[in-house]
């Protein structure tokens, strides 16, 4: 039983064209940058990407998911926010990329539901808006709710500060964001960590992602400072 991979390249080797992938990160914090780079270099296409925002473009340079979108490798994006990614907006206008917009909290809960084996849930979020179109409705305690369904994926790419060989993960500050719930929802969850530590080094009481959710772990090759 070995979850530790020697490189990001090996860790993503079986990600196939057309795969649905959850990408952790919110803005510039907590993105699995090494796994995304490996996916980019592998040339995987037709990806269905689930992430809060379609990466970031800063001073014209694409970061994270935005690198894949610039190369038109993403067929469909499920997220809460366009993040003013002009490549994404342009491809959306021309119909080259499909966009399923989910309110951010609903999206987080749908991802958790996928990981936790919940068949669906009711929320008031967006019930009186255009985003309720096509959704099943139900009045609970006199208030209109919409039914939201789980959002599972073939793979989840997550990034943590520290991890151990069994896949236990610890995040720092706002770099946790979607990572811990996405780790629950990938059929195969691949974690990259800044520090890969010995099995007994993490505090039993303070593990954010228990290793049960993680199938592969790799020490990220490179972390550049962005802010």
């Amino acid at each position: 039983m070995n979850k530790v991979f020697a490189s990001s390249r090996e860790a993503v080797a079986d990600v196939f064209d057309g795969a649905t992938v959850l990408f952790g990160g919110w803005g510039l914090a907590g993105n699995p940058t090494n796994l995304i780079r490996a996916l980019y270099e592998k040339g995987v296409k037709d990806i269905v990407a689930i992430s809060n925002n379609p990466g970031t473009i800063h001073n014209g340079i694409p970061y994270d998911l935005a690198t894949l979108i610039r190369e038109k490798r993403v067929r469909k994006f499920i997220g809460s926010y366009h993040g003013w990614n002009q490549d994404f907006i342009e491809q959306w206008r021309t119909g080259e990329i499909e966009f399923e917009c989910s309110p951010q909290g609903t999206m987080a809960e749908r991802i958790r539901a996928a990981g936790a084996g919940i068949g669906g849930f009711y929320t008031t979020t967006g019930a009186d808006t255009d985003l309720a179109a096509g959704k099943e409705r139900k009045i609970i305690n006199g208030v209109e709710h919409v039914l939201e369904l789980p959002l599972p994926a073939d793979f989840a790419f997550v990034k943590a500060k520290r991890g151990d060989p069994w896949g236990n993960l610890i995040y720092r500050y706002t770099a946790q964001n979607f990572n811990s719930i996405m780790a629950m929802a990938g059929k195969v969850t691949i974690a990259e960590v800044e520090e890969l530590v010995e099995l007994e080094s993490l505090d039993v009481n303070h593990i954010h992602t228990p290793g049960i959710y993680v199938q592969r772990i790799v020490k990220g090759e490179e972390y550049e400072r962005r802010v």
Partner: protein
Amino acid sequence: MSAGSRLTEDQIAQRAAMEIRDGEVVNVGAGMPFLVSQYVPPGIFAMFHIEHGILGVGKVAGGEQIDPDLLGLGRRPLIPVPGASCFSSAEAFAMLRGGHVDLSVLGAYQVSEEGDLANWIVPGQPSGVGGAMDIVKNVKRLFITMTHTTKKGEPKIVKRCSLPLTGARVVHKIFTDIAVIEVTPKGLVLEEVAPGFTPEEVQAATEPRLIISPELKEISLQS
């Protein structure tokens, strides 16, 4: 043109911050709403929440203090306050959806006289809802900070929103560069005007009829 002086973004934020009650948890959105967190009046203890997973936002970090794992909205590095905590997106929205947040401050494209809010989509753009719909449904009070009119001078406070709604009847108070307006069952009540502005000038920049508060006063940033 009015002889009055418009509030800057920081001043709008500062005015909104004066409404925060001791002990409140306040969610802030991107841009001007975030600035509210930087102007808490002395003697008030408030905990600021951002949707991506932090409760206890302090000042913006600079230089040595910058931590790339501790970013606010729009890449802004943050410093946490004593008692702060960080958590997952699911937990961040459990707080909002579960009604645990006292107040949220967001921006807007349009606000209607009934307190409807449109702030998630404009024609020709893909939607950018972010956490707005989750927030507006269950927060106890919702404030809007914005410029009173669009760059073209069109009213953003309207009889009926022409843009798709983020939520119906959700806004409690509006803070702009020329006015403070409360949404009440009787209609919009003009409570304060920017220094030098007249109620008529504010009305002229506003589509629905404003009820002038009997206690109408000039916006002051002295608490």
